[in-house]
């Protein structure tokens, strides 16, 4: 495999970003790599946004976008805390409740997306704001406050919200790794991945080829919303409490991770390996900066530059991939 073949892969931009950030931190930040690789903060953060970034990547490859994920993380957390904490119902109801709210909002987004011609950015902007309202007003109405404590039983802690390896790494890291493998299988090994790429490439042709475009679109929206409420639920179980928050930062962080991971905003191109590395890179920039001598307020500047470079690289590599001709055996 020569260097050009590697550069044409959809993950190329994310690998270059990762190497670039690490080099930058080593050269200008004097980072201690041993300490950084042993630290939990950035891995925990990567897992938190990574679990949502995977389904968002699929959705973006299919040519749509979901920004209501920002409201769904606190929605999942608050649902869990209100059911298990405020009403003191068994934990299982809280878990089912959190996942159900994800499925319901996902169905709502998805059905609107296939029934109307409104861009999904606008549809999910609507559900984002609406869910923020529901979560805040709902928790005020039900509990009288915007912060709810809960106590989770041992099994729920072990599965969703505990520390592993005897340190400060969270169990969501394992969830992230498992989901990454599952999503990789769907996207790159099964025929469904093929269909999702096709939908991002040319929706009309995909429909003509007999692909159930509408059903897949709805499923993908259910995936993003449910993953977000799952992350919120894990957080509530880990920290024994949930607060109402806007979740605005999460939206951009997740989408930036996906784009740095080599997914084209126009759809039709990207890879799970790329998104995985993109998420890692993003987490290292945000959390790894604490291990450097650089003032952490510069982190956002780095993210901004990285995003622009990544989009530029994606575009270049996409062109490279298209013009890649197989070398003629002779001549």
């Amino acid at each position, binding site marked *: 495999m020569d260097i050009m073949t590697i550069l044409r892969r959809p993950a190329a931009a994310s690998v270059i970003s990762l190497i670039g950030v690490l080099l930058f931190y080593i050269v200008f930040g004097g980072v201690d790599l041993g300490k950084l690789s042993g630290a939990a903060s950035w891995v925990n953060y990567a897992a938190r946004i990574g679990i949502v970034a995977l389904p968002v990547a699929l959705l973006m490859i299919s040519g749509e976008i979901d920004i209501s994920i920002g409201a769904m993380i606190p929605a999942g957390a608050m649902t869990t805390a209100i059911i298990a904490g405020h009403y003191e119902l068994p934990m299982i109801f809280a878990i089912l409740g959190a996942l159900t709210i994800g499925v319901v909002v996902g169905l709502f987004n998805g059905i609107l997306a296939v029934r109307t011609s409104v861009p999904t950015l606008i549809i999910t902007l609507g559900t984002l704001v609406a869910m923020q309202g529901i979560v805040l007003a709902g928790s005020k109405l039900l509990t009288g406050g915007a912060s709810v404590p809960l106590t989770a039983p041992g099994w729920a802690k072990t599965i969703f919200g505990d520390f592993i390896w005897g340190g400060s790494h969270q169990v969501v890291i394992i969830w992230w790794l498992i989901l990454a493998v599952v999503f990789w299988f769907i996207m790159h090994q099964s025929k469904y991945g093929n269909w999702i790429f096709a939908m991002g490439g*040319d929706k009309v042709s995909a429909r003509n080829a007999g692909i159930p475009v509408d059903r897949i679109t709805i499923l993908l929206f259910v995936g993003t919303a449910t993953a977000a409420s799952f992350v919120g639920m894990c957080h509530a179980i880990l920290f024994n409490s949930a607060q109402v928050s806007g979740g605005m930062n999460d939206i951009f962080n997740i989408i930036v991770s996906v784009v740095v991971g080599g997914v084209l905003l126009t759809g039709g191109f990207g890879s799970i390996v790329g998104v995985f590395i993109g998420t890692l890179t993003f987490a290292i920039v945000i959390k790894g900066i604490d291990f450097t001598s650089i003032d952490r307020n510069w982190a956002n500047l780095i993210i901004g530059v990285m995003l622009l470079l990544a989009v530029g690289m994606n575009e270049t590599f996409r062109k490279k991939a298209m013009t890649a001709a197989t070398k003629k055996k002779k001549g």
Partner: protein
Amino acid sequence: MSDTPVIELRNVDKSFGPIDVLHEISLKVKAGEVLCLLGDNGAGKSTLIKTLAGVHAPTRGEVLVDGEPVKFSGPKDAQNRGIATVHQFGGTYPLMSVGRNFFMGEEPTKGFGPFKVFDRKTANKIAVEEVQKMGITRITDGDRLVGGLSGGERQSLAIARAVYFGARVLILDEPTAALGVKQAAHVLRIVNEAKKRGLAVIFITHQVMHAMTVGDHFAVLIRGAIAADFRKGEKSREEITDLMAGGQNMADLEASIEGYMETHDGHPPKVSAD
């Protein structure tokens, strides 16, 4: 080969609300025959294609497949009956490989239960073989992205795909319109190849030269009606072009200009400034 046309339209009208787009269209194509549909922009070509492909149901008249009247429930139904449409653009996904494009929606898999894996090797092998059989020898790597192929090669890939999946009627919507001379020749060769394999081909174009190269049978569409219907060799290129440009109208215009010149000492009519 039987004489029953593979696909036939009988007195088909199509209107969208009060607007009549197609009037009394009758045409038929037999296996191993190329019907060229000629018409200028706005003549109703795309509505006709969509009616043939099952996208629109005719308002009046009937569609027959193998002599049997049918009503398509949708494009998928038409495809299942072997009617494949290849559009000028589309049908292929530029950022996907040749193999994945070829098997879109019909992926070969291996493995069991939920672990069915897309069989890339088989897909690539069959795709490359089929495309090469159609005479496109430049495609040798099934992993190559379709966006890197020329327009003619993309068309050929889409046609090879339709043939492989058992199409009996091939509807080609302006396949050569956006192509250079060489690329167009490529596509025309593929049309001939499809015809040799016994497919019924409906070739939509406004390039008379391309039509005359491959066509057995021609129909000229003007304002939603068939203005002329003739077989190979019955009309010259100029006559066909003239027909497409409006036929009678053109002759009337010439006559009126001549008439004006006779009565005005040989001056052509003045074109008014507004």
